């Protein structure tokens, strides 16, 4: 786009998946039947006081550390006062002056660092449902813990915005602090977009309630275009809040920003200061081993092809499982193919999850070893996999029970191959003329004759030996 520079800052809210709400002991589950997970605290009844869920603090520390933030050791909560039907107390308990984490960053693949200005804890509001000119309120969500993660205005393209959000989401998923489902509202992003020809930032427009990272990228593009059109026609921009209509591919005005929106913040007098100790931080830091980017490096170094590395990272169950074998001689390339290929197909077919397989590590390794050493072919794998995954039988036992004979009598093999060479004159000639395909063809013909009862490696070696003699 032209000579305007886009600047984007993003505020992300994620619902933490702690067992309980942040200021009451009620269970935290926004999928429960409407208004069943509610007590007097969640409803803001007169006389109630907030208690504080320690796990929320721990999740906040963990996330702060993963985002390279400084943890605030002496912190308090603040009240943000405003009236809205979904806000039962008439104020939200949040952190204005002492956010739990400050000054962090996320590194993009280009190496560029996107600053994290701050990360703070707050409570979610009730959920409004508008229907037939009426508003219904679901208080299951009231008091669900939120982390708000505020980036610096360091993002300069829709691609960077998308990558920032993907990286953030991936990190939060790996930390297991949130399930980050944008479509269900457990991850929400407000995006501030401005354009400018100079180093000074332009007029800031906030885009709210966008349903996916993909749409956020489109919205940034469309909003920047809109701003550019106004500016190049000598128009002026006013601070606004807008939403994005994905079907029309345009941003739509929600409201103009009022000057001096006054939330009358003050320190929450019902909650004492929270003091976080160095020991607490160090204990939590120990849980930070192997974040996604570190895993990527390990997988690449172990020979997994880049496209499979990304697929494994996307599937945390697989990634966690593979990490059991980092200090072994497991063939990661074969292992990743096995997980992403035949095992995934099996799971899809059976409609079960990987964890429900509870696949024994020894058994997994011996299967990978057999594939890696070419003791069994991928064709045989398909025949035995289901039995292997559902019984405790060894590979050999299963082969035997299925009547598959992994023949190791090489003289039998040689006899068969000799006949194949006689029967396929032309291919043998092509092979000697340097056609690699002909070799593959001869392997295929041999396998057909042997009904795959010899290991692929044995077929390959013997064929080569006899051809080259």
């Amino acid at each position, binding site marked *: 786009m032209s000579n305007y520079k886009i600047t984007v800052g993003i505020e992300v809210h994620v619902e933490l998946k702690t067992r309980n709400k942040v200021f009451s002991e009620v269970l935290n589950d926004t999928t429960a039947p409407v208004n069943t997970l509610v007590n007097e605290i969640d409803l803001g009844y*007169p*006389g*109630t006081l907030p208690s504080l869920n320690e796990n929320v603090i721990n999740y906040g520390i963990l996330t702060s550390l993963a985002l390279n933030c400084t943890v605030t050791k002496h912190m308090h909560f603040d009240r943000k006062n405003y*009236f809205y039907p979904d806000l039962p107390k008439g104020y939200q308990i949040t952190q204005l002056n002492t956010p739990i984490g400050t000054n962090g960053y996320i590194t993009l693949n280009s190496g560029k660092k996107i600053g994290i200005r701050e990360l703070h804890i707050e409570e979610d509001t009730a959920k409004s449902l508008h229907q037939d000119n009426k508003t219904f309120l679901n208080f299951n969500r009231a008091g669900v813990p939120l982390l708000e993660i505020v980036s610096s205005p360091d993002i300069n393209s829709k691609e960077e915005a998308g990558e920032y959000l993907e990286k953030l989401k991936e990190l939060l998923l790996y930390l297991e602090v949130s399930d980050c489902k944008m479509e269900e509202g457990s991850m929400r992003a407000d995006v501030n977009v401005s354009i400018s020809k100079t180093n000074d930032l332009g007029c800031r427009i906030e885009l709210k309630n966008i349903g996916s990272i993909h749409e956020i990228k489109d919205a940034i593009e469309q909003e920047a275009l809109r701003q550019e059109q106004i500016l190049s026609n000598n128009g002026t921009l006013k601070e606004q809040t807008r939403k994005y209509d994905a079907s029309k591919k345009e941003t739509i005005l929600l409201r103009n920003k009022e000057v001096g929106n006054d939330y009358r913040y003050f320190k929450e*007098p019902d909650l004492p200061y929270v003091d976080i100790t160095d020991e607490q931080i160090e204990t939590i830091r120990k849980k930070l081993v192997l974040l996604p980017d570190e895993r990527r490096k390990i997988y690449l170094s172990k020979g997994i092809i880049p496209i499979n590395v990304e697929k494994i990272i996307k599937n945390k169950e697989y990634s966690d499982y593979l990490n059991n074998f980092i200090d072994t001689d497991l063939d990661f390339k074969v292992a990743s193919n096995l997980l992403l290929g035949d095992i995934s197909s099996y799971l899809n077919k059976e409609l079960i999850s990987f964890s429900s397989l509870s696949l024994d590590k020894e058994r997994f390794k011996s299967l990978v070893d057999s594939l890696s050493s070419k003791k069994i072919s991928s064709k045989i794998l398909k025949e035995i996999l289901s039995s292997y995954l559902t019984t405790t039988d060894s590979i050999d036992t299963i082969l035997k029970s299925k009547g598959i004979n992994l023949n190791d009598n090489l003289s039998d093999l040689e006899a068969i191959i000799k006949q194949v060479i006689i029967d396929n004159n032309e291919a043998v000639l092509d092979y000697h003329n340097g056609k690699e395909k002909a070799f593959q063809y001869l392997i295929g013909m041999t396998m057909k004759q042997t009904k795959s009862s010899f290991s692929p490696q044995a077929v390959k070696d013997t064929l080569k030996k006899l051809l080259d003699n």
Partner: protein
Amino acid sequence: MSNYLDLSLEEIHTLLKNKTIKPIDLVNECFSKIEKNKDYNCYITLNKEQAEAKAKELENVPVSDDLLFGIPIAIKDNIITKDLKTTAASHMLYNFVPIYDAYVVKLLKQHNMIIIGKLNMDEFAMGSSNQTSYYGPVKNPLNKDLVSGGSSGGSACAVALGMPFLSLGTDTGGSIRQPSSFCGVVGMKPTYGLVSRYGLIAFASSLDQIGPITRTVKENALLLNAISEKDSNDLTQEGKKEEIKITDDIDLSKLKIAIPKFYLNDKIDKEILNKFNEIKSLLTSKGCQIDVVDIKYLENSVSLYQIIALGEASSNLARYDGIRYGYSTTKFTDINDFYKATRSEGFGPEVKRRLMIGSYLLSGANAKVYYEKALKIRHAMIEEFHNVFHAYDYIIGPTTTTLPYPLGANNDDPNKSFIDDILTIPVNMAGLPALNLPIGYSKDNLAIGMQIIANRFEENKIYNLANYLEQALNLGGKHE
């Protein structure tokens, strides 16, 4: 009619224990007293059926050694009682029946006490003469033309009239001590953090405390022991460190007592000062060392209080929006109009005045100029008190600047109720415990009280000195 409620707690307990009387006898006597004294307007809601049922139920429970077993008690109407209407004396909560019990109420129920009803008060505890109540003022038990004091006017007056002789009040700037002084009863504002605030309808969260109002010092200590258990629902609460024990042989010659110069200032009624000076002479004659000291910032405490209490109140009362409970307007155009109309119609004038001031004080730059500055001075004031308690065991002074005044007087002066509290507010600002002890009567037979203040969590000390003076003055429980 029987007069069991005029007996001491020990005497009643013995009668209950040897089955001479049953809890229902106390309950019936209490309700007939309430009926007889209806025009004092002590109660907003009576809990007659439930109280009678509880009394009957207790007939099947063996009487324990707990002196509070089967004893009637009444509760200020800003303390939440499950299934029993709780209005905070506001039209805003005229129909509010809570779904849970305040922690102190739970504790009273555990002691098998019988809740008689909910006591009148200033609306949301905002006032010091009980005249801001939506349900009308409480009258002074010694003179029906005069105010009871407030905001715990109903709590103090009911105890003075023995209907029943134990109650709970709340104190944000003097709301237990001042009406206790006006009604001639013993009222304790405990250390901030001693009694759980869970279920106390908040006025100013950093100042509010629940406390007992009783006929005698010993009964007061007993009731405070019962309600100061640790509560995990209130993170600002620590609970009691140990049981309060009163000894009848206190060594006065070792006591060092400070009287702030401010507590002897010329705004204070001469009769009150004279009575207080008699106490001072008595203590000196018994060997106490008494010094007049200077405590900085005391003269600023009303301004600080207005900023902090009203700022917090403006936020605490934001939840009364008519959406989930309480009063809702029926005429409105949109959601903002609904809020405006509900709150305009639901709150009384004093509450609205305070909410507007509080909102203004927290708005924009004002938060820094007023609220945060007030917190700093508050901190300095706490240090001042701390220093005094380095050298002294107690601080004493009069509780009020005036004797009870006529109903309707000063109603047009919004500052009056704050000025009433200049001697009680500093204690809340510093989070200290303080007790009002009746010390005699004016020439017109109006009650006069003094405050005994100690360091944080030193309620025990206060009760021991108060008990000594009560015995010496021989006034305990004698106000008819």
